[in-house]
């Protein structure tokens, strides 16, 4: 009897915790919105970005400049999308829509980070290889050991020898040369699990420490994806600090490099940054 009572008490406590967690989910109508453009990057991995003969802006990177520092012009992308869509940079053919905005909102409480992405995923992709998921939305966070993580965001993981790049080994995933990134992803297939993964010397789509939950819905042509993850995941987020992040959307059943990605930005946990997570 005593055991039953104890079990009841414990399960009650868990339910209370669960409901408080549900209550902690932010009122998104009160969370500031920031539009970040995502674009199809073609075959422009970190090796391309840092090679002067390919990208003269590599001189800026050597001086410590970030990609967004030059290519984000007051919230609008400032780069040569025609070049990215051309045959040299995208031999397989570029998606019809090269760039579109994603509205980003972020909030946090003592335990969790809440991140919401709202976007219209365009049709007209170039490689509809994912039969299960029409859309996938991912966010990666870099720890402070990732080379160029602060400057280049997700590009720190993107290499010319990774799968779906021209001539690359199909089994080689994205990777970082040092440090680690947390990867969370929402998939549109019915019943698909939220991905709580990491990128170290290879990409792992499970085994992350951030306890990621992801919910997504489609209303008309607009997707809304809400992530919840622990502040203290693999990449630890502390109040008053900021963390590098980037977004990737695979629209129209795309896989691999046929995504639309954001430049690397900073997420401030209650701190001023490109996107500021507000306290709940």
């Amino acid at each position: 009897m005593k055991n039953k009572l104890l079990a009841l008490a414990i399960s009650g406590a868990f339910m209370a915790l669960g409901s408080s967690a549900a209550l902690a989910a932010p009122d998104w109508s009160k969370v500031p919105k920031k539009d970040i453009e995502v674009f199809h990057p073609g075959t422009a991995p970190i090796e391309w970005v840092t090679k002067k003969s390919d990208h003269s802006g590599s001189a800026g990177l050597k001086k410590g400049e970030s990609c967004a520092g030059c290519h984000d012009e007051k919230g609008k992308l400032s780069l040569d999308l025609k070049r990215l869509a051309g045959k040299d940079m995208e031999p397989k053919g570029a998606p019809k829509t090269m760039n579109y905005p994603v509205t980003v909102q972020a909030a946090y409480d003592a335990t969790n980070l809440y991140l919401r992405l709202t976007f219209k995923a365009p049709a007209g992709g170039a490689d509809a290889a994912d039969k299960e998921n029409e859309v996938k939305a991912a966010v990666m966070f870099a720890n402070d050991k990732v080379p160029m993580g602060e400057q280049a965001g997700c590009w720190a993981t993107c290499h010319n020898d990774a799968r779906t790049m021209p001539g690359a080994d199909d089994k080689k995933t994205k990777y970082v040369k040092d440090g680690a990134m947390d990867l969370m992803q929402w998939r549109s297939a019915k019943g698909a699990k939220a991905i709580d993964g990491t990128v170290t010397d290879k990409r792992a789509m499970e085994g992350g420490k951030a306890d990621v939950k992801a919910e997504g819905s489609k209303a008309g042509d607009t997707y809304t994806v809400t992530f919840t993850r622990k502040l203290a995941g693999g990449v630890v987020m502390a109040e008053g600090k900021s963390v590098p992040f980037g977004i990737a959307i695979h629209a129209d059943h795309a896989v691999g490099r046929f995504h639309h990605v954001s430049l690397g930005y900073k997420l401030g946990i209650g701190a001023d940054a490109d996107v500021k997570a507000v306290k709940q």
Partner: protein
Amino acid sequence: MGDANKTSRWKQLRSPSARYSLLTLLVIGFLAGITFWGSFNTVLEATNTLDFCISCHEMRDTVYQEYKQTIHYSNRTGVRATCPDCHVPKDWTHKMIRKVQASQEVWGKLTGSIDTPEKFEAKRLELAKHEWARMKASDSRECRNCHSFDGMNIEKQKTRASKMHKIAQDDKQTCIDCHKGIAHQKPKGMSEEDDE
């Protein structure tokens, strides 16, 4: 006998004229000078035009087609930079040096060193490197006939241009250090050394 003839000719050339007045000689010399100089300059300038450059298919079918897609050919304001504006110095001394060097290009034409698109492509990097070296050595003199850091208001530029131009000025870089492949296709598969 022959030697004696030569000596007397030379003597004749060196001796004052007994037949023509100094004025006549001066006028004739002056007119001959104008004619010679005028013809020389006319021929020189005739070879210093876009039309002359693309009269050879080696230029017309390759770099000219690429240039036509760029801002130096067609732009909002209608200012056009043609081949010699970028590839031939404006001042006389450097222009003459470049023109003498161009005789090598005549040899290239005669021997057909780039007379097919394949041959041209195979030599593109080498040719480009020659031109980049020339531009770098002259501190991008031909670019600077129109563009200068002094006249450039980087505040009015887009962020990426403004930041890069600030770095370029701080590091005393020259235009061609970054602006390679702006009027013609950049050679493919370049190494970092090729870009120095």
